[in-house]
């Protein structure tokens, strides 16, 4: 169970939402929605302790979540981030670079030239995203909280249904499932909807 009481959230000086109060209960699917920039991701990041609450409290199973205690609470959470399609290297670790032997000997005091190494990594396909999500959820079967930030943002209709099914299963297993999403299919399937635009 995740509780938010009178919380003010924001980044830096900027306040995004004030007086937030809600409880995400075990066995329920809670959906946070709101227009672009209304603070969905910020709220999620705050609930995970990546950002501090400006005012008010966040608690997990009755215990206060702070920046200090957050790492411990995060061991109870499964997290599917917003940019899940960027996690290619989580699903497929990069190979060791192949090197041609050089004449330079083992000790090469020659300063290596660094070419622009920021390689383009192709994003994950919808199928891969769903398989990464289900693998992550499977490994975290004993964690009581599931947090998903826009889990269907990069999915096809069919894969959205699969993802939704996965998340519903988690709730059915008695977990607290918290989703940030603007997709109507997901909002329609939620047990509780928190709209950041209507506070």
């Amino acid at each position, binding site marked *: 169970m995740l509780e938010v009481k009178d919380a003010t959230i924001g*980044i*830096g*000086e*900027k306040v995004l939402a004030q007086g937030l109060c809600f409880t995400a209960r075990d066995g329920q699917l809670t959906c946070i929605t709101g227009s672009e920039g*209304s*603070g969905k*991701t910020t709220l999620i*990041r705050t609930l*995970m*302790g*990546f*950002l*501090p609450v400006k005012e008010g409290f966040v608690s997990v199973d009755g215990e206060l979540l702070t*920046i200090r205690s957050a*790492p411990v609470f*995060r*061991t*109870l*959470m*499964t*997290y599917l*981030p*917003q*940019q*899940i*399609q*960027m996690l290619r*290297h*989580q699903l497929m*670790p990069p190979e*060791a*670079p192949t*090197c*041609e*032997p*050089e*004449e*330079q*000997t*083992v*000790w*090469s*005091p020659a*300063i*290596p030239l*660094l070419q*622009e*190494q*920021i390689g*383009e*990594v*192709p*994003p994950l396909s919808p199928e891969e995203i769903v398989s990464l999500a289900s693998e*992550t959820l499977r490994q975290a079967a004993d*964690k009581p909280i599931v*947090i998903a*930030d*826009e889990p269907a*943002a*990069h999915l096809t209709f069919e894969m959205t249904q699969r993802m939704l099914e996965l998340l519903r299963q988690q709730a059915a297993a008695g977990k607290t499932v918290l989703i940030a999403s603007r997709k109507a299919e997901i909002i329609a399937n939620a047990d509780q909807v928190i709209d950041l635009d209507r506070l």
Partner: protein
Amino acid sequence: MDKGLILHTILGLLLLLIPAGALYLLERKMLQSFAVSVGRMVVQLLVLCLMVWALIRVNNPWLLMAWLVAMAVYSGWLVLRRCKLNIAKLLPAVSVGLFVGTAFTGFWILVLALPVWVFDARWFVPVMALLMGHAMAMTIRGLNTYVTALKTDEQQYEFLRGNGQPHFKALQPFLRRSLLAVLSPTISNLSVLCLTSMPLLLGGLFLGGMSPINAFVLMLHMNVGCVAASVLSLAITLFLTDKSLFDKFGKLMTVLALVTLVLSCKGNKVGEGVGSVSASQESNGFYQSKAETPKPETPAAGKKVVMYEMPAALKDRPEQILKRKGYTASYNGQTRNPNWVAWHLTKSHTNGSFQRKNEVFTEDTDIKGVRATDNDYYNSRYDRGHMCPAGDNKWDKQAMEQSFLFTNICPQNHGLNKYEWNDLEILCRDWAREYGAIDIVCGPIYYQNTDQKTIGRNKVWVPDAFFKVVLCRQGKPKAIGFIYKNLGKKQPMEEAVCTVDEIEQLTGMDFFPALDDNIEDRVEASASLSEW
């Protein structure tokens, strides 16, 4: 110094006549810089010799340690400069990493493996210098890979943290890649006989009167020591830089990382929170080059690539966007010319085997309605002037063919086409080779929009002038513009230079809108040929 030594030195230096002679025959301009660098080499060598000699002569433990510290700081500076990281912020960490890694391994070898008196400068100096050099080179590789991986895959770190992994556990994939970057070349090099440098070192050892077995053992220890020192230095460096790389929330303190992310998932929505974090943390950025360095995009399968060269859509005149292999054109059905032609010129596109001589100018059948034909130009006294030049399309047969479509052609004065415009095209290819890639847009300018002179039955408008704007995103982004009148008179390039803003005002187009607004404003406001 006796006369014999001077004579022999002069005789030895006579060998310089061979390269100097070759330069004299083929490239006289370089003779001076050759002479300067030979001079510098001589001075440096002399200073170095005297320094090492003094170290050995004085043979004081404190002096030796001071020398090692100085080497570590200098090497750390080199590492950070090469990796383009914030020197002020990270120098202590890297220097300490190099110092400890080298000193530990060096003392181990000197005390336990050889064993000799540690502070005997004749041993201390070469052993430490070798270890330090290798550790530095490898730290460059390792640190760069680590930071680059963190930048591109920051999401993975956050994903692991979000799923309850502690900080160093979540860093494991990145540490692994860093280690591989250091050890992969070492592994492939270990097995290769070092044919040139090893005999030199061994020769020195034998000159000093060492027995073959001792020389072998020493070299063995040095090889092993180098590998150990590089890994140890890297480990300590990464450990110590950690505090400077992450804030107290475990968030990577970088502006560039976020920018990279925004660019690479353009088209997919990027978290609203993420954008504002970057703004609030700007002051923490540890990159020397600030967020102003959008990375060069290379097309990748299934990936939406930001086409920086594309101007914004035109609203005040007809336009039909035509995507070609080597360029994109905006065709204007009224002028029968392109509004603009834009392309991303990479180094690899500046050469190729496909020549223009086999090509013929072709009507563009993608244009519905009136379009320019070869007949319009016949006897018009105007050249069929390429916008995206054939010379930028030699890399591909289809690209070369498409550059001869009339939607890439404007009526151009022969003199301009042959001299000034051609010079500019050549210069752009030079820039693409120098910077890796540039973005170019060019097109016609009509000073009055009525009663324009036309040629041929299809009434192709004759431009009054041509513009070309060039953007370089390598390093600190910069842009430059050129306007050439469509006349056959001499137009020096310096006088043709103008800012992108000026051309935007003249043409009513918006160039490089994909750039971050601040960067766009900055690069378009000024233009200086000397900066290129």
